């Protein structure tokens, strides 16, 4: 699927800043869609229904709520997180973001930052499209369809259980299939296993 528009969520209490930011971005040729949120709770309640690409946050909205913020971040792993600063915050807080913008930055630099974020979003989409499983992933898949546990697969392939888990995660990501019966059907249709086995 071609991704032609970018969904941007903004957590910024100042209307002036929000309007300024959106007006500036809308002047570019990108299709940006803006969603404004009053607080983290509101964002969290919306995050499952909408696919946000970039989320711009005033760090004051996250201060003292780091745990809740990290939870939300985990729920939206593909989002590019930007902090929008106009006062000082300590590094521990700022490290939670992918990039940091300051209101005093030149408009060109700000736009370039968004441009970069868009590219990284697109790359993530492109990477997801990579459909073929690697040889090791196929080995794990075949073992899974035979009913082996993670530990058994790890022993069989001489790798750690952690690596098996990583392979499994990649298999799910690449095939879009989560359940074992579905994966078995996939393996059958790609002739990775036969009916007899």
């Amino acid at each position, binding site marked *: 699927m071609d991704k032609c528009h970018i969904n941007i969520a903004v957590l910024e209490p100042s209307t002036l800043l929000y309007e300024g930011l959106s007006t500036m971005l809308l002047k570019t040729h990108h299709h940006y869609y803006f969603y404004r949120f009053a607080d983290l709770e509101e964002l969290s309640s919306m995050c499952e229904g909408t696919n946000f690409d970039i989320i711009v946050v005033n760090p004051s909205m996250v201060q003292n709520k780091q745990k809740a913020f990290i939870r939300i971040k985990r729920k939206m792993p593909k989002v590019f997180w930007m902090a929008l600063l106009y006062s000082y915050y300590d590094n521990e807080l700022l490290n939670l973001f992918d990039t940091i913008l300051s209101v005093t930055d030149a408009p060109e630099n700000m736009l370039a930052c968004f441009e970069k974020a868009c590219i990284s979003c697109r790359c993530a989409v492109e990477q997801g499209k990579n459909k073929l499983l690697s040889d090791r992933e196929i080995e794990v898949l075949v073992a899974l369809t035979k009913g082996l546990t993670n530990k058994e697969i790890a022993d069989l392939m001489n790798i750690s259980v952690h690596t098996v888990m990583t392979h499994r995660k990649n298999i799910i990501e690449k*095939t879009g*299939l989560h359940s074992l*019966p*579905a994966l078995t059907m996939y393996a059958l249709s790609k002739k990775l296993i036969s009916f007899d086995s």
Partner: protein
Amino acid sequence: MADLVIENPSFLLLLEHFGMETALNDISIGHLCKQYRVNTPVFLLLCNLYNGFFPQRKDLNPEQYSLPDLIKYLKSSHRFYTSEKYPQIQNYIIQLHRTQRPEDIKQLENFFGEYFQEVLEHLAYEEEVVFPYCNQLLQGKKPGNNNEGQHAFCSTEYRDHHTDIETKLVDLKNLLLKHLSLDGDFILKRKMLNALIELENDLYIHSQAEELVLLPLLERLELKERNG
């Protein structure tokens, strides 16, 4: 109301779930609800869900939202799944026999059969345990005292059920869309995918209605009950 349906055709299903006539003229939501004696806040809440807006927990007041109307909606959508949507998909799979190798279809049939069974079990659980429990609460009976088993359902378990049902449906959709080549059965494949997507959308709204509306309302009622 008609404008809403034109904007988002899935509202037709919502109307159907409430048994509402679709010759809407220019009738407003308020009027429609009055005419069919449906609690307007519940109807609006579901409209919002269909449009992708989720309610905030703090806004859910059991006095304002009619639980029986919500249950009516949920029960009607159960009927829609069991007597319309799933049989429709099952029927498509049977039709595949005409053009596909039996061993390929067998797997798909098994997968779908097991999945359908799981869904039926979950729906039966809701009808037999969850909804009667709601009714008891509404009638002011203290549940749990007379039947310990009734209190056994908890929200996390409930959520897991839903996630499982949705995940398998996504798997089925992905299998058809990305991996299985049904040579020569283009039209059937499209019909099946359309049916799956419609089902997926409605199931999603359904589970959101249960998790974000029904459960919080229940919890508030329970709290009220406990505090006398």
